[in-house]
């Protein structure tokens, strides 16, 4: 597959995520959109790793070039999991206090 396809695909997903962050006001959904963005990145990374691997494999079939990309994806997933645990905790705490997860109610702090 031409790498551009992957680039465009993941950028598209990424931007969809951003649009979600911009347009929704439910904290949880915003957070989900952020996860979407991360996944777009993951996809791109994997694609790139395969691309670099292909480039290197021409010279030497047994190369391990490109592993790092996939490992990075692994780490991203780790971090994402950690973030989710914290994030959801915060959201729940928020909900406990104001019984809403609507970010538009987050306007005590301004100016």
């Amino acid at each position: 597959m031409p790498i551009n396809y992957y680039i465009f695909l993941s950028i598209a997903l990424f931007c969809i995520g951003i649009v979600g962050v911009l347009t929704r006001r439910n904290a949880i959904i915003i957070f989900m959109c952020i996860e979407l963005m991360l996944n777009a990145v993951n996809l791109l990374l994997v694609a790139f790793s395969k691309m670099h691997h292909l480039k290197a494999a021409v010279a030497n079939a047994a190369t391990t070039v490109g592993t790092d990309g996939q490992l990075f994806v692994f780490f991203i997933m780790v971090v994402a999991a950690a973030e989710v645990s914290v994030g959801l905790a915060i959201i729940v705490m928020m909900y406990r206090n104001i019984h809403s997860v609507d970010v538009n109610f987050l306007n005590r702090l301004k100016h």
Partner: protein
Amino acid sequence: MNALIISAVWGVVLMFAGILLQRKAAVRMVAIAGMLLLLAVNVLEINGTILFNVDTKGMIYFDRFALLFNTVAILSTLIYFLLSARDMEKVGINYAEYFALIFFIVCGICLVTSFKSLLILFLGIEIVSIPLYILTGSDKKNLKSNEASLKYFLLGSFSTGLMLMGIALMYGATGTFDTRFTPGVSMQPSALLIAGMLLLLFSMSFKASLAPFHFWTPDVYDGAPTVFTSFMATIVKAAVFIGFIRLFGDAFGLMQPQWKLFVAIITVATLFIGNITAVFQQSVKRMLAYSSIAQAGFMMLSLFAMNAEAKEGLLLYTIAYCFATIGIFAVLIKLKDHTFSGFNGFARYQPLLAATTTIFLLSLAGIPLTAGFLSKFYMLKATLAASNDLWLVIFAVLMAAISVYYYFRVIQAMYFKEGEDSKIEVSPAFKWTLVILAVLVIVFGIFPNLLFSWFYF
């Protein structure tokens, strides 16, 4: 490496301390002891004794600059503990955990200052951010605190997304996460690389609260418990800057023509927004938040200059800025009323605290004879040395003049306005720490050599 590992370990130690030790004072002692230990081992490492020999496969490299900064950061944290550790009790019940989180943050700082691989940068930034989300929200009953932490979390993870996208694009362009990728690539940088660089620039600007990615800063600093605001406004921010200058020094050192313009724009915007907006604030806490943005703008000059002088200057700036801000916050925490009028007549009832606060404010305003002046001076000098376009320097200077306006409002309130005694009790230890801090600020302002004798790198 020493500090990195020991800070992580000590974090765990403190978690246990929380369970085992009943008395909060004891926990505090453990924490302070830990910081002293960190300081010791870090100084040891500067002098070449490395306790743990870990092969990081070139992902982490502690050069002198990183170590020096770590020392500064740890020292500031120590002072921060000495001044404000007691006030964490008021925040919530998880006293020991707060310390643990701060130690983890220090661990993250060690990563951010010494990474050679984008992976480490990413992990470091996250290790710094996630505990901060929590500390921000640690005052659970306080809606402001909740709101601040949620905002911080959402925006922070958004910027993480940006950063990851940037890293991905860079990986696509270079095929490695190592920041020392072959310069051959950066001769004629591909669109991928530039896009990745810009995205990294954005996300780092976000972390360092530079305009136009600063919007979270005032709200978060304002909403977070003042104790933790003090910490994240000073040490964390400075650390991010070190990471910043590393990233752009190592990875994009040869792409200056591509990013100089943007850095300049961001600097100007930051200085402008930070200073101008601070003028009209009513709450000192929020004013300090904006002032931290403004100061970040000044630190940004070092990135713009990107030469040895700039690095020295950045260290000096960190010291001056951290010391002064920590000091002011330490006093601010004691006050009930965080508006300017809260300081009215302060000099009458707390002459010593007022005097030290004045020194800190003068330092922030960059008045000579204080470290603040020399650090600003260094930034300007470095910028002039790096490039001949003075407009940036002149702009920065004018903004500094404006900054005088809001810093001196506090002084005016303290000295020239009458107010009733806000009954605050402070321990002698607190007072003396503050005095020593003030003296340090002055001494570094008059004899910077005491520092520069270290700074050869």
